[in-house]
């Protein structure tokens, strides 16, 4: 029975490995602990049942009971007997958890948090799969079928993720499956008695069976990958363990690209406090049409979790976007709300699980039920779809505020839900606290405090826009930024949010698009260069109010509002200090001024630089050159053939006036003709060349060549088969055969014969008899040349394989296993 016990353990391990894909949808790894406990209990129950020689149905019952016990212990309702024996209350609790899991699945985006209902359903699912796998693999001895339930686990992330399922977890699961198969096979073989090595040679003292060793190695590899993967941040598997534990995983540079990496479609929503903006390629992402005269930024993401290196996105949760709550009615002096209509068209390059909207959307059309609206974050998200190529329209409510109205806002009560949700939490940095205390000294209202912080990020205080931050020495990105005072939108937005939070006012970073520089009537075309980040501050009874602290000259299409005027506006302009109205001329002038002032920093100019005429002119020569090169490449075999023929036929036939010398009378009185050595060699070479050329010609015209035939036999066969209708060619062929025969075997080669004309005659006769296709191929792609090359290639590769094999054999001699095995054998 040890074989079965072993197989049961393997089945449990394989199930756990197959559960690896779930790591892609969970934020943390708590589920793995629960699942491991459930699988272990199931395996233990199965082993116990088998040890008692229970029948199959009893084994299944035992496993199910074990699973129930494990679930009861893991998710207690509080009324269990001895903490593990379930009661009716427990099952009612399970029912609640199941219902809750359905709700959670709907409301949370992928990378779900560790909620009890979700953990419960995961543990239940993995435990059930463990039961089925054990039943199939150990009970019924059909391990191949066990792949189906294992595959079912993999289908979960496939269903949740639409476009990108990480491949590594699948490999781990597959390794588990293979391990199961191999273990079963080895067990089968073992029943027949002693196992031998696969090829019957050198029995390894360490590994009795290579098959079992392969299975074990696979499993070890799978476990190693499964263990190491969470520790190492791998693209495609977000939420790695190190990041979640809060270690300093990614450096500032690694995370500091706001959608500016290789793929402009996937925008990294992370407001880093340091980094470098590197953008070479311009891609249209969004086209938006609105009837609002000067809209504020188009917004699609929010980062509200503050770390020491910046703001991070948390997972949204919400309700389907179809039944949007009506935006809160905010009435009061100085608050103005207007309804507008907008249509957004996203390009195929924008692939985010989020959709850009103007805040706050009221009525959305043309979006399906996969899109959800998070009321707190005011974003539209989906767990299954992405924003590629969408078109939708919506109504939205634009609120504008006067500073006075904001000033009226009271201090937020300490038990406000936002405060409880840590929207004011900041990492302890004394420099920041000191700065904020200095800035808000004497300010009484919340708005004044925020304005003091907002105004701090001005050119007067030395802040300027640059596409990369400078490294500092303090070790804190925030302090570095506040000291160096250079950066781009992310740093400004994140730093201001940080400072405002430090002043105990809720703040977060919003992501979206500026209005850009490409406006056509009511339509704005927004590119990846218009991506922007800004700060949003929460005012009691008013809501989230945007503040853009980034210097306006650095951002094309920057928009300022009455409550947050441009701090860097030149003095002569009067509108900003006394700004009561919505800002005039929101998009064009700051950007235009900026591009004049700091041209190397702005990025609008670059796209204009690439003009059409410079691109169009040189296209056809490239095509022509490519076609020419292709032709040349195709002509190489034919050229090679022609060169070969010329070289062989180029020699004049060993001069007709061959020097013939009469040696005189032989011992027996006979005379013999002896050709002088040099000429004989030459005649021989000529005959060989002619014969080689003849063989090549035969290959070209698809005439069979037999390596067992003598030249005479070849000539006879050709005369009979191929050349029978050409009298001249028959003579020529016999001549060629005789010349080659004499050159090979006789003392004296044939001299003075017209081999080249004979060759021509034979070739002509062959060509005349061949069909058109053969003739064309013989001229364009001569099979002889191709065959020779193919043979040479095969030859080289064979030699290479031999060399590698020898080297491997030599290296294997130093394999410690073999050395040890040899020693013990001795």
């Amino acid at each position: 029975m040890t074989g079965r016990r072993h197989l049961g353990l393997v089945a449990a391990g394989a199930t756990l490995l197959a559960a690896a894909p779930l790591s892609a949808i969970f934020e943390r790894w708590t589920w793995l602990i629960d699942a491991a406990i459930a699988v272990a209990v199931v395996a233990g129950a199965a082993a116990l049942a088998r040890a008692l020689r229970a029948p199959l149905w009893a084994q299944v019952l035992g496993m199910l009971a074990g699973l129930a016990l494990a679930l009861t212990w893991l998710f207690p309702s509080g009324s269990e007997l001895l903490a593990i024996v379930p009661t009716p209350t427990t099952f009612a609790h399970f029912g609640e958890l199941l219902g809750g899991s359905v709700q959670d699945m709907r409301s949370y985006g992928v990378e779900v948090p560790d909620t009890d209902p979700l953990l419960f359903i995961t543990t239940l699912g993995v435990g059930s799969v463990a039961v089925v796998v054990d039943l199939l693999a150990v009970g019924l001895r059909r391990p191949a079928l066990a792949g189906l339930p294992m595959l079912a686990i993999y289908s979960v992330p496939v269903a949740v993720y639409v476009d990108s399922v990480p491949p590594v977890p699948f490999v781990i699961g597959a390794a588990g499956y293979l391990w199961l198969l191999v273990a079963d096979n080895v067990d089968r073989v073992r029943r027949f008695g002693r196992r031998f090595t696969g090829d019957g040679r050198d029995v390894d003292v360490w590994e009795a069976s290579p098959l079992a060793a392969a299975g074990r190695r696979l499993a070890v590899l799978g476990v190693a990958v499964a263990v190491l993967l969470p520790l190492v941040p791998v693209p495609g598997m977000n939420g790695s363990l190190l990041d979640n534990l809060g270690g300093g995983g990614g450096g500032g540079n690694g995370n500091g690209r706001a959608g500016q990496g290789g793929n402009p479609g996937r925008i990294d929503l992370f407001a880093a406090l340091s980094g470098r903006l590197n953008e070479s390629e311009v891609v249209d992402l969004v086209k938006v049409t609105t009837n609002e005269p000067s809209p504020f930024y188009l917004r699609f993401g929010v980062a509200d979790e503050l770390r020491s290196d910046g703001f991070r996105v948390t997972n949204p949760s919400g309700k389907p976007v179809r039944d949007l709550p009506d935006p809160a009615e905010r009435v009061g002096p100085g608050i103005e709300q207007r309804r507008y209509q907008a249509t957004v068209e996203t390009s195929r390059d924008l692939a985010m699980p989020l959709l850009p909207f103007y805040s706050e959307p009221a009525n959305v059309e043309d979006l399906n039920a996969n899109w959800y609206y998070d009321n707190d974050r005011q974003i539209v998200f989906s767990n299954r779809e992405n924003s590629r190529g969408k078109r939708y329209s919506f109504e939205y409510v634009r609120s504008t505020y006067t500073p006075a109205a904001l000033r009226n806002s009271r201090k937020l009560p300490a038990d406000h839900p936002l405060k409880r949700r840590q929207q004011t939490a900041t990492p302890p940095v004394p420099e920041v606290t000191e700065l904020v205390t200095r800035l808000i000294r004497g300010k009484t209202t919340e708005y004044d405090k925020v304005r003091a912080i907002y105004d701090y990020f001005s050119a007067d205080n030395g802040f300027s826009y640059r596409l990369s931050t400078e490294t500092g020495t303090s070790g804190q990105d925030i302090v570095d930024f506040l000291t160096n005072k250079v950066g781009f939108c992310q740093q400004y937005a994140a730093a201001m949010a940080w400072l405002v939070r430090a002043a105990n006012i809720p703040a977060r970073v919003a992501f979206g698009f500026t209005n850009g520089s490409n406006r056509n009537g009511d339509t704005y075309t927004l590119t990846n260069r218009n991506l922007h980040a800004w700060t949003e501050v929460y005012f009691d009874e008013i809501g989230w109010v945007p503040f853009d602290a980034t210097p306006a000259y650095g951002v094309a299409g920057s928009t300022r509002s009455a409550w947050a005027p441009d701090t860097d506006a030149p003095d002569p302009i009067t509108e900003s200090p006394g700004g009561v109205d919505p800002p005039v001329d929101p998009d064009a002038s700051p950007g235009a001024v900026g591009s004049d002032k700091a041209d190397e920093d702005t990025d609008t100019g670059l796209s204009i630089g690439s003009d059409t005429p410079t691109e169009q002119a040189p296209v056809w020569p490239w095509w022509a050159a490519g076609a020419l090169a292709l032709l040349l490449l195709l002509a190489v075999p034919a050229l090679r053939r022609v060169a070969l023929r010329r070289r062989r036929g180029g020699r004049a036939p060993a001069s007709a006036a061959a020097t013939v010398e009469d040696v005189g009378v032989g011992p027996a009185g006979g005379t013999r003709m002896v050709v002088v050595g040099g000429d004989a060699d030459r005649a021989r070479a000529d005959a060989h060349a002619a014969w080689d050329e003849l063989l090549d010609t035969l290959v070209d015209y698809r005439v069979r060549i037999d390596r067992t035939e003598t030249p005479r036999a070849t000539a006879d066969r050709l005369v009979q088969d191929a050349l029978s209708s050409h009298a001249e060619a028959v003579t020529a062929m016999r001549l060629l055969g005789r010349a080659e025969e004499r050159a090979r075997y006789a003392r004296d080669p044939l001299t003075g014969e017209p081999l080249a004309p004979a060759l021509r005659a034979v070739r002509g006769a062959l060509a005349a008899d061949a069909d058109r296709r053969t003739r064309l191929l013989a001229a364009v792609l001569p099979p002889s040349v191709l065959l020779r090359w193919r043979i040479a290639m095969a030859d080289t590769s064979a030699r290479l394989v031999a060399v590698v094999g020898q080297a491997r054999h030599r290296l294997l001699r130093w394999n410690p296993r073999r050395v040890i095995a040899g020693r013990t054998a001795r």
Partner: protein
Amino acid sequence: MTQQTWDEVGGLLPHDEFRAASEAIVANIEQVIEGKTATVRLALAVLLAEGHLLIEDVPGVGKTKLAKALARSIDCSVRRIQFTPDLLPSDVTGVSVYNQETHDFEFRPGAVFANLVVGDEINRASPKTQSALLECMEERQVTVDGVTYQLQTPFMVIATQNPIEMEGTYPLPEAQRDRFTARIAMGYPDAGAELAMLDGHGATDPLDGLHPVSDAATVRQLIATVRQVHVADAVKQYAIDLVTATREAPDLRLGASPRATLQLLRTARAVAALEGRDYVLPDDLQVLAVPVLAHRIIPTADAQLARRTTDAIVSELVHRLPLPHDRKRSPYDTRPAAPGQGRGPYEPRRP
């Protein structure tokens, strides 16, 4: 003592005279054996190659007639032995007889003391008589009572045997068969030749009217000329390849001996010379492979069960064996030359 000096063998013949002499012999024999030019030339080639001929065929196709015609076409001593079960070795080799007049033993030469020895129905004699031929065939000498007598040059044994009626016969031992250079089968004549035979042979035996067209001295000269035929390295290699192939063929229990290689090449020289060439072609070897090799090899039990004759096996080998080139490598045969991987000396399979 096969290797005679030049003087013993005789001088070289010029090309034309060689051709005339050989053609005369062939034409003379063809007066008797009609329509068997190839067989006749092969028999002559064996004579010129200083070998011995074994003619094996059913009765009545002219085995003995060929042997006698060849013997009679050459003006030299001819002896005929009819092998019977009670034939004694001394009948073949000779015997010392006590002469009462001289009171001494005197040697009375046996049948082998001739230029041409025709052994009829050789498989009817007992093995001990058959082995009496062993020494004389290979070493061209006879040792009787401790005295060694040299045989004349040319010396050729032409033996016939009947493969059909095996009752009361002693099949030739392997050692004996290996001494025959070639084994040929006469085969039935075609219709035209048989008709001509009826016309010509109806009244008299054509052998009676046959006159010698050559003599022993001329034959010696012919033999010397044959020895001069050029054999290129590639041809030698091909002969070795052929013989090696018989040793490695899976169908064969016993392959051809080195003596076979030697005799194959000698016969090929003779064939080439008869065709008027002074160099040997692989074609000659291909033609001779069956007559020279087939009777020396023993097929495996499996091949015998499959009724594969040694002739078929050898001709298949010939058709499978690629031709060696005296140049380094053929352009279409690019198998690695495997330097330094020459095979060890051949080890015979244990039967």
